[in-house]
């Protein structure tokens, strides 16, 4: 099976051996050749010594989901060799370190096994254990360059950029590249039938992970207070924010910081800090993951009822409980939508890739301040920690951020009286004041029963009036949240509906199904509450395959709860093993449902 720019390389290594930079080099070299590429990391919840895989999918068609096959396996981990060999597609190739001989049993007739003595060559060429291990990784990049026909000049220029003033490192890395490259050229038939050719498919794009994008979004949104408790896989979001702030958030005259990042004692404190800071008018956020949401629940309900903005990033991982912390899932949809006791509901945003992490980070602050309520951005490990190729981010300097209904000292001066929870405009959103602004703006914030005037109450009517008004606000939220992405043809009565990182697999699956004459419309929801167009889309179809990455069909439940959608036509397609969903799964499940008669 010969192919150009359609190849999947999986690299099996041991974590803690520095393979990340080698894999990044491989990925970026392909990107620089103008060929669309994505990289996914499958890693253990461990610091050193356990198996880890990095998967590079080269897709001239620009598909960004996990692939369902491996063309080339780089089996650098003896521990997982058998499994790695088994995972290669028929007709594929496996590259391994032949310094040590392998048992003859570990062979497959339908896979070409290519041995390259990387350890031996590196031991001969480099001094010191650490350098030898690191350069072995660079060595397989060199071999892959020969096998896949990756441009050596591109690799050289990347190394020069990476190590700018460290000439020695550029040279040693190039030596290692050459070792692998030359050995492959001399001993294998290069390039392989599955190879890479320069094209013009990456212009105007970058390769970035979602957590970095969200951290950058927070910088551009003007966030000043970030509070957090470290938790995989959200930690790199705050790392990114901190790194951007250290560069861009120093007062030009004094060098003092214009941001506060507070590592909290736990997630309860992190969200408490966010609410305190937002109450005082700062744009404040916390990144976390599922277990953190569980701990934050009491405060999220407080934020909902006392009507305080907050931005929470939930980079979802595999639950329940501790689950699999380094695997992905979309299983916190319901726990976030209704986090906390009592009648509580929260605005959710669902980015599908790092590009949307950047834009939705900013939208989240606008919505939180406009609606005076917590807004949760539901990313996941796949988006947050993997390398995605996305369009260049854009920032419109003329767009004025929405700070919501905050009364100024001048406005307060002219008012007879200010009442915190009065629905003056009929949209369910009251006016708020910031502490210290003006004597007339004072009010008492509480999570206990309160009247529309802000006073404590245990009176039934007064209590109910406020919680009913919160429903009016909910309907306003429905009009303000991002609209879904819809692809619609009146000829189709069946559709796929998905969310977040399930998007890529659905997009690809639709193309594949189309070739089998199964034509499906598509809707990707971007927010909760669902806007009217989501409901309309559901009404327009007889069967909707709801694709999501959890066991309990949480998005489907939410559609039923919030929109009154008919459960009979919502067919769940659930992927929840911790690996990112792929197109093959969606295609197979759709065809199965069609075979069962669940089709229109």
């Amino acid at each position, binding site marked *: 099976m010969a192919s150009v720019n359609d190849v999947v390389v999986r690299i099996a290594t041991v974590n803690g051996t520095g393979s990340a930079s080698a894999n990044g080099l491989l990925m970026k070299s392909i990107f620089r050749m103008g060929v669309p590429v994505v990289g996914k990391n499958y890693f253990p919840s461990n610091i050193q010594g356990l198996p880890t895989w990095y998967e590079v999918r080269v897709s001239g068609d620009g598909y960004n989901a996990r692939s369902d096959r491996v063309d080339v396996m780089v089996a650098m981990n003896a521990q997982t060799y058998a499994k790695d060999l088994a995972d290669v597609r028929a007709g594929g190739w496996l590259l391994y370190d032949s310094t040590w001989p392998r048992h003859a049993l570990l062979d497959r007739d339908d896979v070409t096994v290519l041995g390259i003595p990387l350890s031996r060559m590196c031991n001969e060429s480099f001094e010191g254990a650490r350098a030898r291990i690191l350069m072995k990784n660079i060595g397989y990049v060199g071999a892959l360059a020969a096998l896949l026909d990756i441009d050596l000049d591109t690799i050289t220029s990347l190394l020069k950029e990476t190590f700018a003033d460290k000439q020695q490192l550029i040279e040693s890395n190039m030596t290692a590249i050459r070792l692998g490259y030359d050995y492959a050229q001399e001993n294998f038939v290069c390039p392989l039938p599955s190879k890479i050719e320069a094209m013009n498919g990456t212009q105007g794009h970058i390769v970035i992970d979602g957590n970095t994008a969200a951290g950058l979004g927070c910088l551009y949104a003007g966030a000043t207070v970030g509070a957090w408790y470290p938790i995989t896989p959200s930690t790199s979001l705050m790392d990114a924010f901190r790194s951007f702030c250290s560069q861009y958030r120093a007062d030009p005259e004094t060098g003092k910081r214009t941001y506060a990042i507070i590592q909290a*004692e736990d997630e309860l404190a992190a969200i408490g800090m966010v609410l305190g800071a937002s109450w005082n008018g700062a744009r404040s956020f916390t990144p976390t993951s599922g277990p953190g949401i569980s701990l934050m629940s009491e405060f999220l309900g407080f934020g909902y009822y006392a009507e305080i903005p907050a931005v929470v990033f939930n980079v979802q991982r595999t639950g329940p409980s501790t689950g699999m912390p380094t695997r992905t899932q979309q299983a916190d949809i319901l726990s976030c939508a209704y986090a906390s006791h009592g009648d509580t509901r929260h605005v959710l945003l669902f980015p599908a890739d790092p590009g949307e992490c950047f834009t939705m980070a900013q939208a989240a602050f606008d919505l939180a301040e406009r609606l005076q309520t917590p807004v949760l951005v539901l990313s996941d490990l796949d988006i947050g920690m993997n390398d995605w190729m996305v369009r260049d981010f854009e920032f419109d*300097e003329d767009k004025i951020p929405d700070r919501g209904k905050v009364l100024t000292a001048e406005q307060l001066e002219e008012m007879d009286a200010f009442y915190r929870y009065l629905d003056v405009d009929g949209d369910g959103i009251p006016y708020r004041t910031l*502490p210290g602004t003006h004597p007339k703006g004072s009010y008492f914030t509480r999570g206990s029963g309160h009247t529309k005037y802000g006073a404590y109450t245990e009176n039934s009517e007064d209590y109910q009036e406020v919680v009913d008004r919160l429903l009016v606000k909910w309907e306003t939220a429905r009009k303000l949240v991002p609209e879904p992405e819809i692809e619609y043809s009146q000829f189709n009565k069946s559709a796929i509906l998905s969310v977040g990182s399930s998007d890529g697999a659905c997009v690809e699956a639709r193309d594949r199904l189309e070739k089998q004459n199964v034509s499906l419309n598509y809707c990707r929801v971007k927010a909760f509450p669902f806007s009217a167009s989501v409901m309309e889309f559901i009404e327009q179809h007889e069967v909707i395959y709801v694709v999501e990455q959890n066991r309990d069909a949480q998005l489907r439940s939410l559609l039923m709860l919030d929109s009154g959608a008919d459960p009979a036509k919502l067919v769940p397609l659930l992927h929840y093993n911790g690996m990112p969903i792929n197109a093959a799964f969606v295609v197979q499940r759709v065809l199965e449902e069609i075979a069962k008669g669940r089709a229109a």
Partner: protein
Amino acid sequence: MSYISKPNVLHPKMPRNALGLTERDYEGTVSTLCAGCGHDSVTAAIIQAVFEMNIEPHKIAKMSGIGCSSKTPAYFVSQSHGFNSVHGRMPSVTTGANAANRELTYIGVSGDGDSLSIGAGQFVHAIRRNLNMCYIIENNGVYGLTKGQFSASADIGTLPKKGLANQQEPIDAVSTALSLGATYIARSFSGDKEQLIPLIQGALSHPGFALVDVISPCVTFNDHEGSTKSYAHTRQFYHHVVDADYIAPAEEIKAAYDEGAAMPVELHGGSKIVLRKLDSNYDPTSRATSFKYLRERFNAGEITTGLLYIDKSRHEMHDLMGNVDTPLAQLPLDSLHPGSKELKKILSRYR
């Protein structure tokens, strides 16, 4: 139910402070606590303290958690901003609030349950950050709203109204704060306004975490014989060791003090506090000797009170972080992003 407002009757001759406000302007709604509750005396002390200090009411943020003590911010300074948060979490909300606006005066009111049980984690970490706030614990050894269970500050052997004596070690807020490096630590008694008011004023002026642990008896559930947090017990075993006199910024030190026994300490904005040692063996600037002294007195059954420790060497949270003087919440958003041109440069790292 704390929604009863007070009639707005004002005596024309009521004294006014430098802002032209009377003490009535610093009051809140009518307290709904039990008659004789120590907390109401603490509320009165807070009102007098901030009135005398000429603090603009709307520049005060009253922070609390849940419990009898946490209800009290409704009973003082109506014109200020109150934040009655969730149980045990007042420190984190105050941390965030202070991070956003360092210019407000933060008064946290908590209880022994709120700070030493459910909120112990947040209490200790606010201390570690040297969060600039006045943190008052109204300490009565019991849970009032849930009808009389022991709190973590109940002493061994103390008797409940019904049932068996407490057998668990108490958590002492003062020695906990001392071990964690709090920079202003005071203890007082709700029944001793003269001692308490200047301690609160000092705490409000101290640039850092200032703890005022106030024994504040619960008349309903813990004011009986056999309780170590009753009015009678506190009065009997209560022992001043270092008193404090608060000197406002413009004021001069007028009282005559014995050399060596009195120690003036500069606080924020030119105010001072003069420490008067009533026991010459006590050194309120030494963590090690304070700790030993307090422990020995505790073992002897005494309640040591006064300004027990002060450390002016440590920076408060913002200065530890190296933050600008302007409140972060007041920085205009367009000054906080590097712009679209710079974005292009940032993106070039990802190609």
